[in-house]
């Protein structure tokens, strides 16, 4: 009887393995189709359901090089578009490794909440994938061939990631930030807006959203001010230019503090901006470093200039775009209560906003030429 125990034990073990391995179809890494970037577009058919299309820029890995190819598929929903894509690709589709998702202009104007729902639900998608809005159709942007990069998606990822160096952009244009900003009370989403100019992709400005719908695009100049007012601890370049040869550039870090008060049902916001910077170019006054009063004068000039620009921008925001892109509602909600049914956009339009800018130059560089 003892010997049968061994046989039975062996059979059991083999059976267990077969059981656990059965039905598991997971293919090794070389059988997977990996995308560099996916672009989502919306087409209006005029009647009925809009057709959504997704363009995947997929890596083709061969012995010597890595190239990419685009595949565009259409369907009434994103899920259907994916279904069709699998019919066209020779390997198993793996979602979750893309570097950036590009949203076409149309789609952004229509509303991206269904997109975000698909992203949020799927556990394999990285929440740190970058998002951006493009001019026209995403399909066209992805068609661009950029030398040195297997796919346009890689190039776009680089652009978006390093935008934070200048222009006062912040590095929070990822999926997780989109989730958080769309639904929170008093917060609004902004995403970079990219276009193609002279066969090169660049950031044109900022697309501002209300809830999940894009309502306007701010060109770069205005986007800069929006960023300064909206984000804390961002870096960028400020220039004072009197004429073609007299100018002063400051590469500064901008810190923002907001205070909120409510008087007689009317909200008052104080935005305090503090600039700390280093002089980048000085064609205005030589040897600023030795002249403390001239330095103070320069600082005051920067502050006054910025304040003026920012106030003009806010006026624009109130009258032309009518959205609280500056997330002031969030501060107010934090102080005066949430879910009270207040429409923070309206509050923003009626509110009184005061801006105070201080500037400090703390580094002068190596020397004055």
């Amino acid at each position, binding site marked *: 009887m003892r010997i049968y125990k061994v046989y039975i034990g062996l059979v059991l073990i083999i059976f267990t393995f077969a059981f656990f391995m059965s039905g598991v179809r997971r293919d090794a890494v070389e059988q997977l189709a990996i995308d560099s970037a996916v672009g989502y577009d919306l087409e209006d058919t005029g009647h009925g359901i809009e057709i959504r299309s997704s363009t995947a820029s997929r890596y083709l890995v061969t012995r010597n090089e890595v190239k990419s190819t685009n595949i565009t598929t259409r369907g009434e929903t994103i899920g259907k578009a994916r279904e069709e894509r699998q019919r066209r690709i020779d390997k198993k589709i793996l979602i979750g490794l893309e570097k950036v998702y590009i949203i076409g202009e149309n789609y952004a104007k229509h509303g991206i909440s269904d997109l975000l729902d698909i992203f949020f639900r799927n556990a394999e998608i990285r929440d740190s994938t970058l998002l951006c809005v493009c001019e026209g159709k995403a399909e066209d942007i992805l068609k661009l061939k950029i030398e040195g990069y297997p796919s346009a998606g890689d190039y776009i990822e680089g652009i978006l990631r390093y935008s934070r160096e200048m222009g006062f952009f912040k590095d929070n244009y990822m999926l997780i930030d989109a989730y*958080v900003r769309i639904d929170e009370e008093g917060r609004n989403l902004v995403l970079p807006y990219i276009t193609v100019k002279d066969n090169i992709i660049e950031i044109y400005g900022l697309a501002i959203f209300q809830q999940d719908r894009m309502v306007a695009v701010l060109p770069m100049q205005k986007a800069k001010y929006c960023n300064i007012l909206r984000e804390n601890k961002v870096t960028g370049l400020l220039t004072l230019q009197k004429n073609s040869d007299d100018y002063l550039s400051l590469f500064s870090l901008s810190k923002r503090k907001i205070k909120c008060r409510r008087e007689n049902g009317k909200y008052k916001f104080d935005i305090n901006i503090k600039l700390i910077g280093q002089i980048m170019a000085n064609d205005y006054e030589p040897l600023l470093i030795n002249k403390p009063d001239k330095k103070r004068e320069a600082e005051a000039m920067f502050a006054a200039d910025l304040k003026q620009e920012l106030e003009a921008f806010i006026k624009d925001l109130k009258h032309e775009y009518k959205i609280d892109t500056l997330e002031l509602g969030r501060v107010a909600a934090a102080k005066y209560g949430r879910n009270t049914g207040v429409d923070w956009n309206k509050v923003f339009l009626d509110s009184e906003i005061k801006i105070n800018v201080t500037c400090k130059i703390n580094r002068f560089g190596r020397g004055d030429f």
Partner: protein
Amino acid sequence: MEVGKKEMRPVGKDEITYQEFTYIIIGAIFGVGILSLPNQLAEVSKQDGWISAVVGGIYPLYIALTTIYISSKFPNDDVLSVGKKIFGKFLGSILNFLFFGHFFVNLIGITTGAMRLSIVYIVGFLTVFKISIVVIILAVYGSLLGLKVIGRLNEFMYYLKVVLMIIPLIALKDGSLLNVSPIFGSGIKNIVSASVRSVFAYAGIEVMLLYYPYLNDKAAIKKGALKSTFVMILIYTYITFLTIYYAGPNIVVKSFFSVTLLNESINLPFINSFRFFFMYTWIMIVFKTIIDNYYSCCYILSNFAKKLDIRKICIFMAPILVIVVNIIHDEGTRREFLSKTINYTLIYNIAYLTLICLIIFFKKGEKNENL
């Protein structure tokens, strides 16, 4: 002295130290409940979810106090034998069986939660059946090893938990106080009604009623019970606060396992998301919770009749658990099942324990002579 323990596998003498006692209690509570705690609480009380976590701590505190009281009068009998003594063997056994119901429901909740977690996040290609078999085999192996080994395991896992709790502090850089303000903004009523939901997360604390006779240092029961309760309340409040601080109350409600959102703030150079390490360590912690609760269930069952050997019960309960878990594994069914049953078992527990305490209090003189 009737302690109700059967012959365990001889690893030591089944005595646990005061630290192991504390860690076993913490280990039996800390498992799956915490991952979905913030979204459950924030659903009702929004940004004040963390206050509800504190308020919900009244339940474990109450259990701890009753434990201290009962153990001071009957230091060598666990609560099951006390029940039998007070109500007589037959009635006591029935009441103990209902007591067991709470543990069983808790075990099902934890096991199905663990399986849900693994399928969603790390092993989506496996079926529920396979995972349930694996997990339950592990639970049986762990339970067969006896209380002393479980104590050591819990101690080790406690340190792992501490590490895992400290790492999300990185999320502090991305969140902001605005997300948790205004404090008390949702109203006291909402806060209190949300704290009822936190009770599932605190379920598991009743194991302290079962294991206090095994402490080799009886004076430390008080210290152990209170310390574990406060540590758990602290951990839950801390995590709920951190999650709401990082993600804001609205997003927290939308996620099914909101604590995993915290992983998104950690960026490691080599791997895409920290979620992988987090889940991997978490699965081990959940294994430990399952083993704790499984052992407690078997322990109660083995107390019914002296002939039952705890090891056989461990093995027999496995197929039953597999079947039940496979019926209830679907997330929707699970939440429905839990929300219906946990409330009843909880109320029953509180009533039962209060009754025992009152009877002990009133019959103090008489009962002590009958021991």
